[in-house]
């Protein structure tokens, strides 16, 4: 292999589980796809023979775990992210070709071991786990690991792979004599727990204590493939095109956007922008002040915690909050107990390998069904669980166990909550919004699609909850400032200017940031949505810049509140070019995102997608958001006089016809056929995607 210093490790590992052998694919051929989402989609296209499958648990499915050139480098908050693609499960109406990702150390170790991606095809004849140490790939019988939870699985694999040390405290890795290489690091293991084995769509892939990949249902795909775990340990290097540039850009981004952790004036809550925010930590508070902020490889500021109490390590985000308020009620306002129960349960979910995201929006609904007499012993949906105990520690564990071991309601809802509701004849519960699963049968992210429209639009126009917080940074900053009665650090007109400056040339007017009722179907918002999807497809999920740090569209830590995104000194493209040597512009990256998106549309078309299917759940159009999640839903709006202000967008619903028209214009702008939503032959040719035409034509899906 000729060596090029471009951040790629050089090889792709194709695991053929059916025959338990593997193949080494040179990355060269796929370098044009960048990495992550793009690389994974291209590999899926080449290696998945039957792209019409609609459930990821089908043995024909191929999933790809893909890294980017930036993984394993010091690119701020891009060094440790890892992308998974393939046909998922748990979506409604079908399991789309979808994506997910995972943080921690997994992708960096995959690259240090010399691999850019892993293509997993077929189905193993018996449960296996795969050990990769640099170039060594070994299938192990996972019979004795089957049934173990994710923590025990990892600990057992780590101990099996532990070679002791030679008195140096460094592990020697295979190599003859002076080719022996050493590491002080532990292998990075990605595995499933019992839920994944039992192919529940609520299962999560787990790496380390708290890095999980759950949305998309890939843990069930692992289970269906009889694949318990993959472990990577590498001692290699990643060749950087311009290391000097990368190092100095990393120094610079710390100067400009780094959190001043030692400065007592640093405020945990009043930052505006993503890159410079202090650690997020647990949402349910902490049970001790003895903890650290913990970060994925290369992150500029960690968002997770490790405690001294023996549980809750690396838990974060809604994993820590989905049960907290039930506990608060149950323990009559005892906040310490609430934190304890919330963290223990979050920890347990990570241990056992369960997606907590589906719980965030479903437990309330189950509580409702219980009190409505639809859920219970011998009721419409049978359960032995006692929902009167909802909030207790014991109930929490029993509830999670039901899903982890696919029993009781865990079995009933194993294919998804929307699917379960329909099965129970309770479709109206969903259509009316009691079950707040608004796009593709997955839970609303909490940022109501009727208010934060770009989130809803992008979710329904792609394949799942888009989970991309780019514009969402505005919402939180403004909403919290409003709650606390603080002055807005950045006024509405200014934020519109700051953001739209970053969106050029997709939009040329601040109007794109106008979230007012009369503007949300406009071409400006449509172009903002396109930018959002393209950014998501390339910079976020192909280059693998972390969602919780990028895009940094505005940032109060920087003079003029200018965000780091697209910045000539510290923007995404600076790191990309320093590592790969490509010399692309920020906008070039977005164009690549477009190309990837069109290829994905080709796959969706083969899976059976048609534009008529692309609509959100009925309640999004029929009902206003009634019971507010927020006291207010503050977004920048511009009134007819051209005056900008932050406005509460509660109590809004979308209009079917106008969204339909929006879709038509969106498809046209993206080069998709407005009649069907399928890629057009012309667009495919223009984007260098001609290779997909034949297959689309065969299936009558070429527009």
């Amino acid at each position: 292999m000729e060596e090029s210093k471009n951040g790629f490790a050089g090889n792709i590992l194709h695991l053929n589980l059916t025959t338990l052998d593997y193949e080494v694919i040179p990355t060269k051929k796929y370098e044009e796809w960048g990495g992550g989402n793009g690389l994974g989609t291209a590999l899926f296209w080449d290696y998945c023979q039957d792209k019409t499958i609609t459930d990821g648990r089908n043995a024909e499915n191929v999933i790809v775990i893909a890294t980017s050139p930036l993984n394993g480098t010091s690119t701020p908050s891009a060094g440790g992210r890892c992308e998974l693609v393939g046909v998922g499960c748990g979506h409604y109406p079908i399991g789309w070709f979808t994506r997910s990702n995972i943080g921690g150390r997994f992708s960096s170790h995959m690259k240090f071991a010399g691999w850019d991606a892993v293509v997993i095809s077929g189905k193993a004849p018996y449960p296996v786990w795969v050990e990769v140490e640099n170039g060594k790939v070994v299938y192990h019988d996972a019979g004795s690991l089957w049934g173990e939870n994710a923590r025990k699985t990892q600990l057992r694999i780590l101990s099996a792979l532990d070679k002791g040390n030679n008195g140096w405290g460094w592990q020697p890795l295979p190599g003859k004599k002076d080719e022996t290489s050493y590491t002080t690091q532990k292998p990075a293991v990605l595995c499933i727990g019992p839920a994944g084995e039992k192919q529940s769509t609520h299962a999560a892939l787990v790496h380390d204590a708290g890095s999980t990949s759950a949305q998309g249902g890939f843990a069930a795909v692992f289970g269906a493939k009889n694949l318990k775990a993959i472990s990577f340990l590498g001692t290699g290097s990643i060749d950087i095109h311009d290391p000097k540039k990368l190092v100095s850009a990393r120094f610079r981004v710390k100067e400009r956007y780094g959190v001043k952790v030692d400065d007592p004036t640093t405020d945990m809550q009043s930052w505006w922008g993503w890159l410079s925010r202090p650690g997020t930590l647990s949402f349910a508070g902490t049970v001790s002040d003895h903890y650290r902020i913990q970060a994925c490889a290369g992150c500029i500021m960690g968002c997770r915690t490790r405690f001294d109490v023996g549980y809750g390590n690396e838990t974060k985000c809604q994993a820590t909050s989905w049960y907290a308020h039930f506990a608060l009620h149950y323990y009559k306002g005892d906040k310490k107990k609430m934190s304890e129960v919330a963290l223990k349960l979050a920890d347990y979910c990570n241990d056992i390998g369960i997606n907590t995201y589906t719980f965030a929006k479903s437990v309330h609904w189950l509580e409702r069904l219980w009190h409505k007499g639809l859920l219970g012993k011998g009721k419409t949906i049978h359960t032995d669980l006692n929902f009167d105990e909802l909030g207790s520690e014991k109930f929490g564990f029993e509830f999670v166990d039901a899903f982890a071991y696919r029993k009781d309601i865990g079995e009933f809802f194993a294919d998804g909550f929307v699917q379960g509701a329909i099965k129970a004849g309770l479709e109206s519960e969903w259509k009316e919004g009691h079950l707040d699963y608004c796009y593709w049968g997955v839970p609303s992210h909490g940022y109501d699609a009727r208010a934060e429209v770009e989130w809803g639009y992008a979710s329904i126009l792609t394949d799942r909850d888009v989970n991309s917080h780019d514009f969402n940074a505005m919402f939180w900053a403004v909403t919290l400032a409003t709650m606390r009665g603080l002055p807005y650090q950045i006024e509405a007109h200014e934020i519109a200017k700051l953001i739209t400056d970053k969106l050029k040339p997709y939009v040329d007017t601040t109007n794109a940031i106008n979230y007012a009722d009369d503007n949300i179907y406009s071409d400006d918002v449509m172009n903002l949505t396109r930018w959002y999807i393209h950014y998501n497809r390339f910079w976020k999920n192909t280059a693998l810049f972390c969602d919780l740090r990028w895009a940094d569209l505005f940032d109060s830590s920087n003079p003029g509140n200018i965000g780091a995104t697209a910045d000539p000194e510290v923007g995404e493209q600076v790191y990309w070019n320093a590592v790969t040597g490509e010399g692309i512009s920020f906008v070039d990256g977005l164009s690549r995102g477009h190309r990837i998106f069109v290829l994905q549309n080709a796959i969706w078309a083969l899976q059976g997608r048609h534009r008529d299917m692309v609509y959100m759940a009925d309640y999004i159009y029929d009902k206003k958001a009634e019971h507010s999640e927020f006291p207010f839903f503050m977004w920048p709006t511009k009134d007819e006089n051209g005056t900008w202000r932050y406005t509460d967008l509660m109590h809004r619903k979308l209009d079917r016809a106008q969204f339909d028209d929006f879709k038509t214009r969106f498809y046209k702008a993206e080069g998709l056929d407005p009649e069907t939503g399928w890629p057009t032959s012309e667009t495919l040719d223009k984007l260098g995607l001609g290779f997909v035409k034949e297959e689309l034509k065969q299936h009558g899906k070429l527009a």
Partner: protein
Amino acid sequence: MANLRREDEMETIDKKRARHLLRTLDFDDWMMISVVFPPRSISQKRMRSLEEMELTLIPNEKMYPSIQPEKVLAWIEEKVGDKDLAAELEPIVADGSLNYLQKCVALGKAVNRRCDMLRAAAGGEDA
């Protein structure tokens, strides 16, 4: 909306009445609000009783209530049925000089005082 009443119009609270006001409501009368876990999380939460509202309203370092004060006022008046408390809360809800969290604190304190009184009247036991 509760109308302001004169002092002498206030309802007398006996044990039974106190227990009634502190009761757990029927499911259909529960009120959906949310709690914000700073810095960045929010979860829905059903309010089942006045005492649960009491526990939720006062913001602390771990969580802020996420409510719409007018709706809380209406719920207390109509679902809980405590018109006196509602009357006490009304000027707070209407006070434009308070920011949101200050308003929550003021509401929380008033509800807390009321619950203390009701608990005393109910014989120190929850209804």
